[in-house]
């Protein structure tokens, strides 16, 4: 039986344990053995994106310590954390040769959840069922950071009972950007407002995404506005049968 190492990002761990469990359900259904290295914490992205490289490096080192010794692919249901590990780590350790080697080895084994299923396992149908209308919000880090347009859509198209409708301005950012949403709250809110109005136009009760950051941001805005639409994670849809 093939083993995968699961990296559940800090947001998922703290806010959405059910998304992590949904990912486990899907992976196990595909016959994989899922291991969860217990000492894992965060990938270091908040510090890295804010320009605090030294602080981010410490957190990234912890990640390397936890995952470097494990075997098999590292799968994470987060486009932005996968992008951090794949692109951010080699940059963070650019002048630290030994850790750079470890970082590159880990980066090569790390995959975002939907990319892993479609590109690595060659799976397009995970046997999911969802009766209803869905739309898809591509998170910027999965879309442009990992250059992945198709994998999540392919998986969604194979969900029985689901109708996939287009989201206008789908590829525009939702305005989250981590600390950006707090430090430049006004600008971030304006960008979010546009995303929410586009969701309204799509009229889908549920929007699917592959990043808990966008999900928290958009749902927070929708809830404040008293709108009943919600964003859910791809793994949650795929886990349903």
């Amino acid at each position, binding site marked *: 039986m093939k083993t995968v190492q699961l990296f559940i990002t800090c947001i998922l761990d703290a806010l959405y344990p059910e998304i992590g469990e949904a990912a486990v359900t899907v992976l196990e259904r595909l016959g994989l053995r899922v291991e969860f290295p217990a000492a894992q914490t965060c990938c270091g992205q908040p510090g890295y994106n804010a320009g605090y490289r030294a602080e981010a490096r410490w957190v990234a080192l912890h990640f390397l310590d936890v995952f470097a010794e494990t075997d098999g692919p590292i799968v994470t249901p987060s486009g932005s954390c996968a992008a951090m590990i794949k692109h951010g780590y080699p940059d963070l350790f650019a002048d630290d040769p030994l850790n750079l080697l470890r970082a590159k080895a880990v980066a090569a084994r790390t995959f975002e959840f939907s990319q892993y299923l479609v590109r690595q396992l060659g799976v397009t149908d995970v046997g999911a069922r969802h009766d209803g209308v869905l739309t898809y919000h591509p998170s910027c880090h999965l879309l442009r950071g990992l250059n992945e347009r198709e994998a999540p859509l392919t998986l969604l198209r194979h969900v029985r009972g689901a109708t996939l409708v287009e989201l206008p301005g789908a590829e525009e950012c939702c305005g989250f950007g981590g*600390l950006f*949403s707090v430090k430049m*709250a006004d600008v971030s*809110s304006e*960008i979010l407002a546009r995303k929410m109005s586009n969701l309204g136009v799509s009229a889908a009760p549920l929007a699917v995404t592959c990043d808990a950051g966008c999900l928290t941001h958009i749902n927070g805005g929708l809830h404040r506005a008293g709108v009943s639409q919600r964003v859910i994670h791809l793994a949650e849809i795929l886990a349903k049968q």
Partner: protein
Amino acid sequence: MSFSSRITTALADSNLQVALDGNFERSRTQRMNAMAALPNADLVRDRARAIRIEALSRLDTYLLQLEAAVQARGGVVHWAATAADANRIVLEIVQRKGDVTSPLVAKSKSMVSEEIGLNAALEKAGLRVVETDLGEYIVQLRGERPSHIVATAIHLRRSDVATLFEKHLGLPRTDDIPTLTAAARKALREVFVKADIGISGVNFGVAESGTLCLVTNEGNGRLCTTLPKVHIALMGIERVVPTLADLEIMLRVLARSATGQKITGYTNLLTGPRRRRDEPDGPDELHLILVDNGRSRVLGSELAESLLCIRCGACLNICPVYREIGGHAYDAVYPGPIGAVVAPALGGFTEFGELAGASSLCGACQEVCPVRIDIPTMLLKVRSAHVEETGGDAAWLGPAMKLWSFAMRSLPGYRLSLWLGRLGTRLLARNGWVRRLPGPPGGWTQSRDFPALARKSFRARFVERQTTDDRRQTMDDKRKT
């Protein structure tokens, strides 16, 4: 005014918001269509990038080649290490010319001249400078600087221009665009006729032939560079390309990225001044000023890639932040995502580093950039340099980051922060949502609710699930035996 108050002002300006939204929609579709119509667009972009990299990697060679070629065609080449040098050289040229009688200077759009503050320097010396590009003319009349590197007056609407022309040109108030442009044209034609000095920027300088390429959509660039007796061209040293064939590739992506056109209305190739006997027009003198002003320093830095930029403005047009705040909020010569790299690269991290915070790192800029500049990564570099030089722009952030880093590098620290977060959000939440977060995170709850942390983390639930699995397994095993 601080960056954040400039942002607040921009967001509250409904005129600006309408103008910016219009620009976003228009420029995005135009650029997309134009790129889609370009055969092998991806290959052409790769080629364009390779040309820029080649030019920069042997910048000294190509600049010397350019200098020699321009001289061979009868032009004069000047080297300006700083902004002050460049301004001084322009003034010297103007003052040395005994037969220049009119104190009038006709200018065609040039971001470099904005960068070095040329207009102010010339006006201080008693000259009158008139911007002849319509957009530039408008912002000059308003006493502003451009808010976009291509579409200078993109922050204005038609009615703003009507008001402006009513005041300055004595035009009876009208919203009719042809009438407005005709009025501007009439005013500017007089300038062209009277001015003895024409100043322009340079989009590309071709090393092999000494050709200066100038791209405009109005023809004013052509008038500035051919009618006055003296033409002074200002060129950032990075804008060199090796050959005419390279220039052709660059032009294929420039207009498409900038305005969605196949080729710009007027693409002028100037090679030397007028050769007296056989040419009817052109200036008597051509001066090329090669402006460094920090570029060679950037070339050796981790922001070197920003020098590939051909100032097409595509990244501004696609940027969700620029779309909300416009160019003036940046208060830098070069606004938008690439401006947030170039401004601190040229002007220093202390003063301009903060601009790099105005990004969600969505990567749309990199995706559209015709020469594929990795702007997001450079924004990160600017952010960290800014933090290193100034300690960061928010007092709470440094300590918060230290604490975060400390907590996340061990499991007990992580567990403790999880516990605190759960406790805190549970106390503040009603029905699972927090409406107001205290302290710096309060920015979040300005327009968004925040979910309370889950009662049980994934890790706790995963352990439980495994133990149940194991127990079930043992029971099964027992039953079997």
